């Protein structure tokens, strides 16, 4: 049992550290507004430099511009980037989740056309899965894709929670191509240019007042036959690949929430707080949970490096992390008082951001269902949508609601 680098990993780390040392003065600031076009451009340029240095897309195959290394090296690169005090890649969703999905399911043409510009930040990508009526129950998407006379597709519907849509060039869209089969079967994944006719992007303001996410409206958006990823009717399986990579991406970014160091510093500076047993217990519980997540992350990495794919139990780390971050910000605000809620202060943004994060990637309740059923083997809740054509579902739901 050790947390040490192998000689090869140590060499990779030294190389990353040396490169970052040399180039850190070319990096943009770590934080900025997603509405600031200049900062976004600087982040794209920085992503290109990281990619050329082999510090982005570390796990991507070499033929697509990656390093062809393992997840531990990706984490090593992230650690060194964080240590250097510079931002990482801008397009976490593209490089972490959508690119790997294209590598797994895309055609040769799709891979050749899209992976390079994605990796180098020339084209940012976004993920259009969730809808107002399809969140945790993702297979309930209503966006319709109808085949046109020329063999292409026409998409109409509404997507939501779309990070980076305001400046993305492309996105993956999950849409329904057949409503007469059960909900998981009639889905197809498409590549959609964000500048296509009929695409409207609108910012979605959150509790903090900022608009990090977007709504995307599709109004008869025309796509070619070659926009389909992974085959017509196979959209659910393609989406699951993305969600598996999402678990990995969230799991490896786990130190970023809750800022335990700042919490500890804030409490340590307050003599009344640091001697108060309730404050100490709350702090002890928060720190303990975050330490557990960190070491479980190392365990997950060990398993990954041995070729094991993380299962749904990885979702427990997300539950722990988000709740610990909520408890951490709560504690800081209780100690600081109303001043903690001052808009430009360091706590107010997290206080506003965390309640929504509880539902990100599926609500905590649905995660617990999935883990209870898939990990503990508990029987599933009786489902009212199984084997029923999607087109009949809404009528049945209405009947169910009426009792």
């Amino acid at each position, binding site marked *: *049992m*050790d*947390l*040490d*680098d192998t000689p090869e*990993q140590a060499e990779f780390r030294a190389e990353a550290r040396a490169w970052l040392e040399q180039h850190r003065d070319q990096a943009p600031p770590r934080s900025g507004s997603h509405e600031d076009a200049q900062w976004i451009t600087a982040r794209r340029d920085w992503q290109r430099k990281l990619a050329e240095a082999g510090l982005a897309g570390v796990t991507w195959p070499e033929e697509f511009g990656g390093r062809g290394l393992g997840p*531990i090296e990706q984490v090593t690169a992230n650690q060194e980037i964080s240590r250097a005090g510079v931002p990482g890649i801008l397009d976490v969703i593209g490089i972490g989740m959508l690119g790997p999905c294209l590598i797994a399911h895309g055609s040769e043409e799709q891979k050749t056309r899209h992976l390079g510009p994605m990796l180098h930040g020339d084209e940012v990508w976004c993920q259009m899965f969730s809808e107002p009526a399809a969140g945790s129950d993702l297979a309930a998407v209503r966006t319709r894709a109808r085949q046109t006379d020329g063999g292409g597709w026409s998409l109409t519907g509404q997507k939501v929670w779309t990070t980076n849509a305001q400046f993305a060039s492309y996105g993956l869209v999950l849409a329904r191509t057949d409503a007469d089969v059960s909900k998981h079967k009639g889905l197809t994944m498409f590549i959609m240019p964000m500048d296509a006719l009929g695409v409207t992007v609108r910012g979605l303001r959150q509790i903090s007042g900022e608009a990090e996410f977007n709504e995307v409206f599709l109004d008869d958006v025309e796509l070619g036959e070659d926009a389909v990823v992974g085959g017509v009717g196979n959209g659910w399986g393609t989406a699951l690949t993305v969600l598996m990579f999402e678990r990995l991406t969230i799991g490896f970014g786990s130190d970023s929430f809750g800022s*335990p*160091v700042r919490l*500890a*510093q804030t*409490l*340590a*500076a307050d003599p009344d707080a*640091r*001697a108060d*047993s309730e*404050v*100490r*217990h709350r*702090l*002890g*519980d928060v*720190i*303990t*949970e975050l*330490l*557990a*997540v*960190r*070491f*479980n992350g*190392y*365990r997950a*990495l*060990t*398993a990954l*490096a*041995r070729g094991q794919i993380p299962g749904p*139990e990885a979702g*427990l*780390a997300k*539950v*722990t992390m988000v709740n610990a971050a909520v408890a951490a910000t709560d504690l800081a605000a209780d100690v600081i008082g109303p001043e903690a809620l001052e808009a430009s202060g360091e706590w107010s943004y997290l206080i506003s951001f965390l309640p929504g994060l509880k539902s990100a990637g599926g609500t905590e*309740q649905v995660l*617990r*269902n999935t*883990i*209870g*059923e898939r*990990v*503990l*083997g*508990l*029987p*599933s*809740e*009786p489902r009212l949508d199984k084997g029923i054509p999607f087109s009949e579902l809404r009528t049945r739901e209405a009947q169910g609601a009426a009792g």
Partner: protein
Amino acid sequence: MNLALSDEQVLLRESARGMLGRRKTVEAARNALVDLQELPDLWPDMVAAGWPGLLISEDHGGAGLGAFEGMLIAEECGRVLASTPLLGLLPATAVLDAAGHESLPAIAAGEIRPVFVPARPPGDLDWRWTVDQRTGMGRAPAPHVTTDGDDVILNGSVAFVPDAEGADLLVVVGVDPDARPTAVVVSPGADGMEIEPVSRYDATRRLAHVTLDNVRGRRLELDDAPLVDAWYLTHALIAAESLGTVETCLERSVEYAKERFTFGRPIGSYQAIKHDLTEILRRLENARGLQYYAGWAREAAPDEFALAASAARSVAGQALDFATRTMINVHGGIGATWEHDAPLFFRRAQLSRRLLAGTRDATDRVAEQTLSTATP
């Protein structure tokens, strides 16, 4: 990075599970509530398995293994509520090994069973070395140590010491007149020594009140570090043992939730039950992560061991409390009767959380470690 168990560690765990599986330890835990004589004597099995020498260096006749291996064994004991004197034994051997004590080969061979009489190191709010007292919220000062020629004289008392009854040698942590911690080796038969066996609620946990009235012993030449380490080692072990018990509570509750039907459905299909069982799993996984942290820190980052062991005990202790209560709830009324094993696990949880300064004291120590490193 590699946090996987080695082949040797897997083997150690499996042989412990095999050995304990041949004894009806859970049944014994119930019978012992009526008659303590019903507890099987597992010492000969422990000796045969080499556990007494686990932490003793090879030079002194032991296996020279680490705290993590001790935790793997404690976890197996916890799974089946085995009544083994590990909590008293392993920290005692760690202290004696640091001092290179003459008894080590005999201990490793199982001829002598030592016990650790623990004292809690000072913290940021309490500068003293303290011990558990018989009742009340406060903490008693660690026994006083005064020098008398080559010997030392001990005065004081320590309540609820695990495994002290029947031990062949005691390693007592006391303080000298300058408030410096001192480890003293004492014979249980020494004049002025009283070891009063006590049993509280969980019959598998053998406890004793140790009273020292001008008791003569020999000082171990050690600095503070091994004594601080020994206190946190007891925490890491009780955490591992609790983790093992949580595993059993979860397995048995899940099994029942699949079999028991209400309103035409297995109760495990209801979210109310499913989410509680998932919560046990979440806490169990966190406790396991911290078990790795504690095991890693003691070898590779000793400065972090106090934090890691305290975190492990805090999470595992709270997990055990949650798991045993949930186990009773999932089983319904029968889970709260002697017909079922659930109360035995519940008894274990109730006593464990209050021993060795208590689970919440460990949480406080996590805060203390965090605050002290955050102070500018």
